[in-house]
């Protein structure tokens, strides 16, 4: 008897994703949608969308959504969660949103241990606006505002945000994952699902950073982009579960 073993999640709408071909946003959103469905929390979840390509996510999930100003998704999420503590709240932000203009809120949302879940999509560039340098851009990486390659002497080195956040006591689960390969995608799914379980159990702030590609602004094909990620981003950004408190371990 034939069974369908891979099916589009109920957490996703039937709308075709508007992202560029090969953009990893779609993979990550699928993982989130499946997590929401498997934990049976779609109907009690409110997502917060940022400014950036990630901002379109509000059209692709089947849960309620609120659009935030650039960088402010975690403050908006805090407001929603403090108002409705029984609901699930998550933010879905690019690195250009959370690791630059939004870093103030990234740190304090974690420091206060706000019981929300944040997902960072890190492609080391400002994608939506046409490929400018981001705080996560690698040294030597060419972007439209670092046309000669990012120069450490002038503009510093990339920011490893999950490592910073892991240092804060209120952050009880911090994971750094990648979606460059099916194997890593499955690891990423576990981390994302755990990050929602942490919220469901009321344990504190959960943060998952996902290494991602931007074929369009990197000037590479989707498959080449995945390889570029492996070759260049993985050596710089520490992967793994960077913070797991005892309570989270027992989940």
């Amino acid at each position, binding site marked *: 008897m034939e069974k369908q073993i891979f099916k589009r999640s109920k957490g996703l709408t039937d709308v075709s994703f508007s992202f560029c071909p090969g953009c990893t946003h779609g993979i990550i959103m699928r993982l989130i949608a499946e997590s929401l469905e498997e934990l049976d929390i779609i109907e*009690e979840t409110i997502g917060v969308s940022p400014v950036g390509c990630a901002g379109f996510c509000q059209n692709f999930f089947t849960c*309620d*959504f609120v*659009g935030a100003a650039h960088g402010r998704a975690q*403050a908006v999420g805090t*407001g929603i969660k403090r*108002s409705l503590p029984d609901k699930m709240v998550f933010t879905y932000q690019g690195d250009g949103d959370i690791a630059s203009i939004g870093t103030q809120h990234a740190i*304090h949302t974690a420091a206060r241990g706000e019981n929300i879940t944040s997902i960072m999509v890190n492609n080391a560039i400002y994608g939506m606006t046409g490929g400018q340098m981001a705080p996560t851009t690698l040294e030597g990486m060419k972007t439209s505002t670092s046309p000669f390659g990012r120069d450490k002497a002038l503009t510093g080195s990339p920011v490893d945000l999950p490592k910073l956040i892991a240092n804060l006591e209120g952050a009880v689960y911090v994971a750094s994952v990648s979606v460059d390969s099916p194997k890593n995608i499955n690891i990423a799914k576990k981390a994302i699902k755990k990050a929602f379980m942490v919220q469901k159990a009321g344990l504190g702030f959960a943060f998952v950073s996902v290494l991602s590609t931007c074929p369009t602004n990197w000037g590479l094909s989707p498959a080449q982009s995945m390889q570029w990620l492996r070759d260049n981003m993985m050596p710089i950004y520490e992967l793994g579960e960077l913070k797991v408190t005892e309570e989270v371990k027992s989940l």
Partner: protein
Amino acid sequence: MERVLMKGNEIIGEAAIRSGCRLFFGYPITPSTEVIEYLSAKFPDVGGTIVQAEDEIGAINMCYGAACTGNRVMTASSSPGVSLKQEGLSYSAAAELPMVVVNVNRCGPGLGGLGPAQSDYFQATKGGGHGDYRLIVLAPSKAQELYDYTMMAFDLAEKYRNPVMILSDGFLGQTMEPVILKEKPASEEYDRSWIVNGAKGREKRIIASYSLTNEIGEENNLRWEAKYKAIEEQEQQWEEFQTDDAEYLLVSYGTTGRICKSTVIEARKKGIKLGLIRPITLWPFPKKAFAPFMDKVKGIVTVELNTGQMIEDVELAVRCKPETHLFRRQGGMLPTEFEILEFVESKFNLNSDKEV
């Protein structure tokens, strides 16, 4: 109904509690800090939630999030902090979110001073943030109005799905006066089919303010414009003091509006037919108040704590017909009622022929 002696900023906090507000997000800034301090102490008893945000921008965005869920929410700040909130206010107006925002106006610009000012009139009434939006702005002039207008603010915010600002000042915020803690007046039930609280048993909802195409942008702006026109038509509020036979008018709001009442009394003692129009809503500006006077009065003096902001709206309201002057103090200084009267007398050459 209790009659108590309370500090201005605390009165706002108490009024918020009695208005059913259980969410406050703020940041300390003098001279508004007593609002967050009072609520930090009182909220736990009433099941309220208060977060001292990392900064003013965090606070306004927390208000934005909470407002999306349909619950009453407030923030309080003072001039430089309100400057930081401008993007958040533009977003909140565009997303059509009810919330109450208190500005305890202090002297600016820059770091400025802690004394009372009316230097944020433009910021409050002409936008402040980007885009074509408006805040409903209420200007209390005494303790009882800090209480009453706060209650009114929550209702107006829900009625029109728009942020409402209470434009107080550093004097009002810090002064202790008796206030009657009235019961909250009954308010209407407003449409809540827009709130975001988890899509259980209904279609999902999105609250956002992006206009994907220029066509959608125009459509959205026309919708917002229509709302603001309705508010202008229906919500202008002002107080008149001895205006029936007035030959000269003072126009002033807030603390100076109150001082001007004394000026009117002093003027009348001298036989000068002076009256006062005290705007209560700064936006919508009470243009209707001026229509009966524009061809009747010989002169107008606006009394402001700035370099001349409201005077522009007054001149527009009277089509620049009567001679209009600005009396102003700045930097946190307050005038006496006599200074104001002297100015009126000198500008219009009153009483000079009575000199011996």
